[in-house]
């Protein structure tokens, strides 16, 4: 038995939940800092796992134990190059969110930190589970904490309760459909083992049922990603959630869907995925372009960034669709499809750090002014120069400026897709142009450039209610620093992370 890294990463947050529950609710300082410090343990362990990980060695850090023998359900965990960056991303964003919230959450502190840690367990569990039952349990465990985070700490004017239940219902519709499909898969293969099922050809004897199962699972993941037209929960949930909640929603929860497509949908049903790839590709294009256009039409900064997620996760979907569409094409398409899949996986990681960062930055301005109306700002570069710099860099990363993280993954996706489905790639490029438009015109110009008007500013900023420094405070800079670091690192020297991803995605593709 090796050292159970993954079990510890997953369940240390749960242990922290128990301890937080035992701390009296009025000891807010203790609750906050205990949670932040404990969340460092999974973070350190996930880095350690990344360091020890052998790229090209397949699934590693495997753990296996019998869980429910009659059901043939096992406690199976393991990570490969696709899950490791996501586990790390989850642990990182959780720590940053808790740290940021330690300064900004003022009401019902105990519940907030408790739920956040519970959420972390669910998310990490999804990325490391290798058994469908276990996967499903973790998949659903995260649902309730997020639901409560949105509903309790949302701003009243954003209809948080409506958004919370909408998020809950959308996700649940997908997951129950997925559950039926999992059962059907289990009934034909006799195992829940996610690594074994692909080779057993799930539902091979029943093509009609296989198609139904494919779409049922696709629905669950498409809602989570989210793809047009099942994305409508996202703008509501992201806008209503407290800052840290939005960060985790955009940064990690959307990746659960993406990860599921790569880990489950593609290997279980490669033939069906290939068959339907042109249609899913169209949905991906609509998500990219429609998401960008709607973003451009927003005057609410947070909603704008929320819609940009629909667009950016569309790149991810295009990448995986391209990989699926070229399944039985021989070289050199093989390299193209690996490139597309690498791009898709990296896009998930990048979107996590970039959009997570953008939501933190929305929080920065919102905490000061209590408004997100783009028309209320203007010329703030004079007043908040550091904030301007950080926002500019994150925004440029988001629109894919070379040298920053977003460029690498978008380039890979389009490079891969261009060879496999050129028309799609060409149409998709439009989205990149639109992204530049809404980031530069809508965000940067409306908020930071133009004439600074003292009158406008004093209408939204009340110094009485703000106890930190006017420009980004130290804790806000500390929160953003790791994210900026990774935007630069991946943008300039992506090899360490790409090597890990590439080994796993080529292994995945060659096994299909």
């Amino acid at each position, binding site marked *: 038995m090796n050292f159970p890294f993954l079990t510890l990463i997953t369940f240390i947050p749960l242990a922290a939940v128990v301890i937080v529950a035992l701390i009296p609710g009025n000891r807010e300082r203790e609750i906050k800092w205990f949670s932040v410090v404990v969340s460092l343990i999974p973070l350190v362990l996930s880095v350690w796992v990344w360091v020890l990980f052998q790229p090209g060695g397949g699934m590693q850090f495997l753990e296996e134990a019998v869980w429910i023998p009659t059901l043939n359900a096992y406690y199976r965990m393991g990570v490969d190059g696709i899950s490791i960056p996501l586990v790390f991303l989850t642990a990182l964003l959780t720590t940053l969110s808790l740290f940021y919230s330690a300064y900004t959450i003022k009401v019902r502190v105990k519940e907030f930190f408790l739920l956040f840690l519970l959420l972390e367990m669910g998310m990490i569990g999804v990325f490391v589970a290798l058994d469908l039952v276990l996967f499903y349990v973790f998949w659903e465990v995260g649902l*309730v904490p997020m639901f409560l985070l949105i*509903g309790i700490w949302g701003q009243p004017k954003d209809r948080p309760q409506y958004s919370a*239940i909408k998020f809950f*219902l959308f996700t649940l519709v997908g997951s129950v459909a997925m559950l039926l499909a999992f059962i059907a898969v289990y009934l034909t293969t006799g195992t829940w083992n996610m690594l074994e099922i692909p080779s057993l050809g799930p539902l091979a004897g029943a093509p009609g049922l296989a198609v139904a199962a494919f779409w049922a699972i696709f629905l669950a993941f498409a809602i989570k990603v989210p793809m047009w037209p099942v994305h409508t929960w996202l703008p509501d949930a992201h806008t209503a959630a407290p800052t840290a909640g939005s960060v985790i929603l955009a940064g990690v929860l959307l990746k659960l869907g993406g990860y599921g497509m790569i880990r489950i949908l593609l290997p279980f049903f490669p033939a069906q995925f290939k068959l339907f790839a042109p249609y899913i590709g169209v949905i991906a294009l609509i998500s990219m372009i429609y998401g960008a256009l709607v973003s451009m039409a927003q005057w609410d900064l947070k909603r704008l960034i929320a819609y940009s997620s629909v667009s950016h996760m569309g790149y991810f979907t295009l990448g995986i669709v391209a990989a699926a569409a070229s399944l039985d094409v021989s070289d050199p398409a093989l390299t193209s499809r690996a490139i597309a899949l690498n791009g898709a996986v990296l896009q998930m990681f990048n979107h996590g750090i970039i959009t997570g960062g953008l939501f933190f930055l929305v929080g920065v301005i919102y905490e000061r002014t209590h408004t997100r109306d783009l028309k209320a700002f203007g010329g703030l570069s004079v007043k908040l120069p550091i904030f301007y710099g950080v926002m500019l860099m994150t925004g440029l990363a988001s629109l894919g400026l070379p040298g920053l993280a977003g460029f690498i993954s978008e380039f890979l996706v389009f490079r891969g897709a261009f060879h496999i489905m050129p028309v799609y790639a060409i149409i998709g490029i439009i989205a990149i142009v639109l992204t530049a438009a809404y980031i530069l015109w809508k965000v940067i110009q409306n908020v930071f450039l133009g004439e600074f008007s003292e009158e406008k500013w004093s209408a939204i900023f009340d110094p009485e209610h703000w106890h930190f420094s006017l420009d980004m405070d130290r804790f806000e800079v500390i929160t953003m620093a790791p994210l900026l670091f990774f935007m630069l690192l991946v943008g300039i020297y992506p090899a360490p992370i790409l090597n890990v991803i590439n080994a796993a995605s080529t292994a995945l593709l060659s096994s299909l």
Partner: protein
Amino acid sequence: MTLNQFLLLLLPEIVLTAAACVVFLLDMVWRRDEARGRWLPWFAVLGAVLTAAATVVVWPMAGTDGRPLAFAVGQGFGGDAIPMMALDGLAIFFKLFTVLVLIIVGLSAGEYIQKHTPFRGEFYALMLLAGLSIMLASAATNLVMIYLSIEFLSITSYVLTGYLRDDPRSTEGAIKYFIYGAGASAVMLYGFSLLYGATGTTDLAAIATALAGGSVTVHWLILPAMLMALAGLGFKIALVPFHQWSPDAYEGAPTPVTAFLSVGPKAAGFAVLARLLLTALPAFRADYWAGVLAGVAIVTMSLGNLVALWQSNVKRLLAYSSIAQAGYMLIGLAALAPQAESWTTGLNGLLLYLFAYLFTNLGAFAVVIAIENRTGSANISDFAGLIRRSPFLAVAMLIFLLSLIGIPPTAGFLGKLFVFGAAVQSRMILLAVVGIVNSVVSVYYYYAIMSQMFFGKAEDEEPIGAAPIMRLVVGINAVMVLAIALYAEPFIRLATDSVQMLAASF
């Protein structure tokens, strides 16, 4: 079989009857003694615990060689032996089930009953007798015995429902329950008489033999007979369209009785239905009852959930919710897999679901009782801000609601996994899809309670100091709901083993 052996096999029933009598007697003796009267619920619970012990004693005697150990009226007395009851896995399962219901309801009833009515002792004695009738019904292998025990259960339930005689709603609920029940049981009896007329026997196994033997010339009678029997049992389970009594009875009855009614009689109905269909009418599965049950399941789930959406009283809401839950359970019977090797045979799913539902629903009702004890009413608005007033009750209620929805890691998830699994396995995809659509719809009304508890603001922020015993009951139920999901093996085993013989006779 000697008289002693015969009595030994009836030990759980005898102990329970004795306990009911003791409670009756003590109540008479202590009529004016308020201080001692407080001990009555504890005697009832003790009686249930002793019954559990007796069940454990007879457990090893249950038939093992694939045949239920049947025993008969008149055996050991020298008369003609007519098999009436069986001691098999199913009977043992429901004995344990009943005992758990009695213990949980008995523990949570104390404060409520003391507050609402001066007639204490009869309440517990009647409850024990209702429990006895569930045990008898689930063990009955003869139409006469089935009818008698179901009738016994009905009458005790009517009295319990109308127990708050000064409360018009309680009386109204009991009257509705009674009138409806009288009709339903008459129809069921008529159905039984058709079965008897067609086959010449009231013994379930003998009915199957007669039907298979070719001596029966009136096969067309079986469908109406089965439908009529279904009406009577559907009334007990509160299946649509035999459910109209339940919201009024549930709302009017004392809340501990509502808790009991939502679990006990349902379980009895399912036990009898399963035994009747599998033992007496196995040959008619594909032609008749699988389809009928699937249809009833679809209507029951959908109607229960849709009507629940509009409720503002928690007891009424949980009444409709329990109608819907019965619909999910029925999937297990409808999608029964004839081959027993699979992990889900439908039957074990039904039992597992019932077991999960026992702790879930009784837990939810215990929370309702705890709140009602303090606020005096059970409207959804009474749950406002519960997380501030009693975090313990709020979190426990959340767990119960999640289990009712079927979200892991709760017991309700495991139950749904098994019954939906059976449906997929039997290629009844439509049934499974309707089931999951309903699970999603149900979120909306469970959400009404969740949203009040966590998002709502209480008018009165005063903490709800639930009595220690209520906290204990709620806590145990919550732990069980989680344990059944996380440590599922023994519970799946229990459910699967309990139906082994029934499935083998199939």
